[in-house]
């Protein structure tokens, strides 16, 4: 009915115009007040400010990026962080060294085991504790499993960012198996409090290790399937290849580490360069961007960062296989005094986590509580590169760039 009415009105208007056909042009000029000598340069134009986040699926958490766009092109990107700030560093000043472990868990909640291992190693190095061989093996095992689990989330959500839903389900299906193993050994699925100072909390049984052996066999095939499904997909390649290149110079200037640095072609992996745990006994490669010409793209682009992660999963599997072959028996806890007091002094130590290098700067005054703990978070560094990466990208490509850096806001804000 409305339509009819509208049309009727339109017809009426039309008739009107027909009647006063002579005055038609004059009327338009009067109404719109359009400058006759308007050129493209004299027209007023401004950049459109767009808020990406804080609640946005592509930001992987509560991150807000203020984007200034010129039509579809990002001309300025300004990240705002702190939405998940939980004063972790302040809290640690009033907790004893054991009580800090659950807080450390909550830094990078997708790789809690790696966080715990990093923290425990730092405190142990200061204390001079000797960790039994079995505990070290278990630590390496859980770190590598957690690396796979974390990279699976990165892989799944990255595909999700680029519009493919199915890989996400595939990835979470496999991650579930790792989480089930963690649940068996630690009782928790996400935040474990499993790696303690001096060793690990609970022993791993042979049946649990057999479960892992089955998982490894399945997962190798599954990884091949991921490559068929996603890596060789032409839409995925178009979206990621040659997009958001972070070159080596920028990486070093901003202190980027992990897959971002390796994606830029630098073979820097702390597990190789400064081996901790028992990585010096294990054989594995460090995949970098550009060392496989079949991948395509440019060194340092989204595709290469993604591909480094995919290959790291395979390397982690290799490590786990070697660990399972010679799993030592023995105690799982070293000798640690009941109340831990670090000697006066300070230490800075870093470990290789799925997202980059995690460092702990612990200052001790000799008491049972630390004087200051500063966490060097890899994601904090990576978010700070976004203002450099952003300009010149399409908005959709910017989403691809954020996804390829793989941030966890728990660690950025601490």
């Amino acid at each position, binding site marked *: 009915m409305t339509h009819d009415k509208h049309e009727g009105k339109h017809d009426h208007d039309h008739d009107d115009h027909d009647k006063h056909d002579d005055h038609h042009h004059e009327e338009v000029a009067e109404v719109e007040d359009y400058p006759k000598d308007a050129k493209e340069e004299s027209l007023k134009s401004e950049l459109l400010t767009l808020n990406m986040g804080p609640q946005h699926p592509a930001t992987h958490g509560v991150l807000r990026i203020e984007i200034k766009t010129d039509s579809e092109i990002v001309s300025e990107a300004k990240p705002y*962080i*702190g939405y998940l*700030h939980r*004063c972790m*560093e*302040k809290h640690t000043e009033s*907790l*004893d060294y054991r*009580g800090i472990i659950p807080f450390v868990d909550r830094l990078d909640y997708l790789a809690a085991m790696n966080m715990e291992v990093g923290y425990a190693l730092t405190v142990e190095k*200061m204390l*001079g504790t000797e960790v039994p061989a079995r505990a070290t093996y278990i630590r390496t095992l859980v770190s590598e499993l957690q690396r796979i689990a974390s990279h699976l989330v990165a892989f799944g959500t990255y595909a999700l960012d680029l519009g493919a839903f199915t890989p996400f389900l595939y990835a979470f299906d496999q991650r579930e198996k790792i989480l089930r193993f963690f649940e068996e050994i630690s009782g928790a699925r996400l935040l474990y409090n499993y790696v303690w100072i001096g060793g690990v909390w609970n022993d791993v049984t042979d049946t649990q290790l057999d479960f892992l052996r089955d998982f490894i066999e399945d997962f190798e095939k599954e990884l091949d399937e991921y490559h068929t499904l996603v890596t060789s997909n032409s839409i995925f390649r178009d979206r990621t290849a040659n997009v958001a290149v972070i070159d080596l110079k920028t990486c*070093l*200037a*901003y*202190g980027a580490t992990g897959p971002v*640095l390796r994606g830029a072609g*630098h*073979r*820097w992996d702390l597990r190789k*360069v*400064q081996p901790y745990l028992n990585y010096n006994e294990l054989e594995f490669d460090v995949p970098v961007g550009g060392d496989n010409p079949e991948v395509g793209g440019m060194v340092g682009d989204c595709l290469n960062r993604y591909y480094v992660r995919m290959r790291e999963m395979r390397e982690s599997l290799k490590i786990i296989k070697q660990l399972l072959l010679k799993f030592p028996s023995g105690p799982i806890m070293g000798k640690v005094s009941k109340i831990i007091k670090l*000697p*006066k*002094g*300070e*230490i*800075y*130590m*870093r470990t290789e986590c799925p997202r980059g*290098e995690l*460092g702990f*700067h612990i*200052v001790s005054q000799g008491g049972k509580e630390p*004087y*200051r703990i*500063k966490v*060097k978070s890899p994601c*904090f*560094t990576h*978010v*700070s590169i976004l203002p*450099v990466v952003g300009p010149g990208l399409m908005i959709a490509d910017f989403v691809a760039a954020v996804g390829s850096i793989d941030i966890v806001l728990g660690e950025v*804000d*601490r």
Partner: protein
Amino acid sequence: MLDELCQEIKLKFPASQAVLHNPPENVGSPSIEIEAKSLREVALYLRDDCKYKFSVLQVISGVDYLEYFEVCYMLANFDLARSYEFILKVKVSDRVNPVLDSVADIWPAANWQERECFDMLGIEFKGHPDLRRILCPEDWQGFPLRKDYVAAKYYNGMQVYPDHKMNLEERSFIINSKSKQEELQKQSLAKGL
């Protein structure tokens, strides 16, 4: 290696008064302390001219020692053949109005790290391109990681630190006296927990 580096810095910049701190009994990380006024020239030297070429600034960690602030720059070179890292330390003795030169143009990584240091400890970095709070809200009062910081009870008229939620005694991790432990157990039983 650090002995040599410290001597070099001392020779090139006598004003820096570089001192090497080796950790006691080899527990911990060694560091080189320099005067605040020669921070920028030493930083430039460490990045470009010295033979180790510390091209990466990993993190800036500020520590409040009550009499003074100490700002630690964790430097490294990601050189595969010979990788080195050490802590460069600068003391800021003025607590009321702490100012330090910014190194954000030398290592771009310092941009955000200095912002965090400013946010948490209130150290002002002179010459920083965009010195704003980064983790706390912009209108937050005080600097949380200072040792004399008292948590605000109100923020913008909202109660953020209510007493009934912050019964620290009940939540303390180590309960020393046994009678207190029993008392707490009784209390929780009475509450039906």
